[in-house]
């Protein structure tokens, strides 16, 4: 199943302390709330979900002087740089298998991965099949 939380619009004035520094999974959507990226804050992610989400939206704010900046801050994927508008996340210690679950569901419903994941250089393990589609099929939500 996909992340069930409602989409939250990114607000450049967001207090970073309100985002968890924990491991987990997240989705990024464009202004029409179409998913453009499914990501994870892994055991290697500096600053957890907080760091990964700021990495996605980071070029929209000035982070000078912050002491917890993601090493790749300012270098989001092109589709994220141009279209990211909404996010939703889930704190999850089993982030890796949950990430694959969400990717598999999206891939089954839409016949392809989100654009951002296609652009990303991270190797995705072989995804399986559900052999059925959800009502989201074709909507790209």
């Amino acid at each position: 199943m996909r992340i069930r939380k409602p989409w939250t619009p990114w607000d450049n004035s967001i207090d970073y302390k309100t985002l968890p520094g924990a491991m987990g999974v997240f989705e990024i959507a464009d202004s029409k709330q179409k998913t453009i990226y499914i990501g994870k804050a892994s055991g290697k992610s500096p600053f957890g979900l907080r760091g990964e989400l700021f990495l996605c939206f980071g070029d929209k704010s000035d982070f000078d002087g912050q002491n917890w900046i993601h090493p790749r801050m300012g270098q989001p994927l092109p589709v994220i740089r141009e279209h990211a508008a909404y996010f939703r996340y889930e704190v999850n210690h089993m982030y890796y298998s949950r990430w694959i679950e969400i990717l598999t569901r999206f891939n089954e419903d839409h016949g392809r991965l989100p654009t951002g994941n296609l652009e990303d250089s991270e190797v995705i393990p072989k995804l399986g099949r559900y052999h059925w589609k959800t009502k989201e099929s074709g909507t790209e939500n």
Partner: protein
Amino acid sequence: MVDFRISDEQKLIIDNVRRLIREEIRPLEEDLDPDAFSLPPSEKDRLVSMVKEMGLYQMDVPTEYGGPGIDIVTRTLVAEELSQHRAGLYAPAYGVFGHGPPGQLYNATDEQKEKYLWPVIRGEKSAFFGLSEPSGGSDPARAIKTRGIKDGDDWVINGGKLWNSGADTADFGIVYVRTDPSKGREGISAFLIDTETPGFRVERLVQVLRAHYTTELSFTDMRIPSQNLLGKEGGGFALANEYLSMQRIPYSATGLGVAILAHEMAMDWAKQRETFGQPLANRQAIQWMLVDNEIDIRTGRWACLQAADLAHRGEPFRFESSMAKLVATEGAGRVVDRSMQIFGGLGMSKDLPLERWYRELRIRRIGEGPSEVQRIVMARDLLNIRSGS
């Protein structure tokens, strides 16, 4: 008296496997996600080629099917080596030694072998194993509710399965179905089921403690041709049991492998880490933990090798196989737990593989028959009680 000294040939095989794990697999893991269970395809292809050159690809496949013909004792020793890396417990060497076919397929008809066995051996198809159901897994003779009804030349199957690792990526599965509800274990048959069959669904990927998920399946009016019956009608349970006992031995040794590596890491750390002016290794509390680790590892190894030795000689080994499973998996869990204690805070972090082994070893006390079921199996043998009594 059992002689557990290894032969020159065994040593050569073990050395080759050990070198590949230490010099190829472990360095690659530095760049992988701490919970990763697969390699980038280019790296996997490169390592599979290396393994083929070693002559160890598809090591579980018998010689008559083109495999290297490794005996169960050597296979057990190799299992202990294969798992000595971060993902090693559930993805030993990331599968570069090949995924042999489920043993039950060697009982298939020639036509079935052509369609299912050979493609798995060639690495073209993969299979899942469908035994457990939401109603239970430890007592499949009673728990299997999935029903098969003969309809002309087909069987119509309805029901579902749970805890089927790899069913979402598999091409087919061996699924156990109740074909005669008036009988107990003799009413269960095994079927070869293509995952593209209409009515087959992966309901969900089930998230568990380990890095890799498992699945829940449903079957709705799934029509399976009679020629996909594996073995005799009503012979499914015996088919499952025969192979589960054998697989239990290397499965147990795999757990020992990560225990050995955790123990080595803990010993190195105890020698270098100083507290209050002395290395941890000088503290009696730490020394006792390390000695207890060593005892658990040696006890588990002895139990695994004894079971393997009996199986190799064609003698009854069910009791010993269950004992190996219980002793090795429970002991390995204790070893990793103690090793984490020795590492302190670092042992809890994702910087080290200990936390992953800790989570995954907890599952080992349930998977392939929980410790309690192993005790039931052993008690039946000890007391000469027929199963089902």
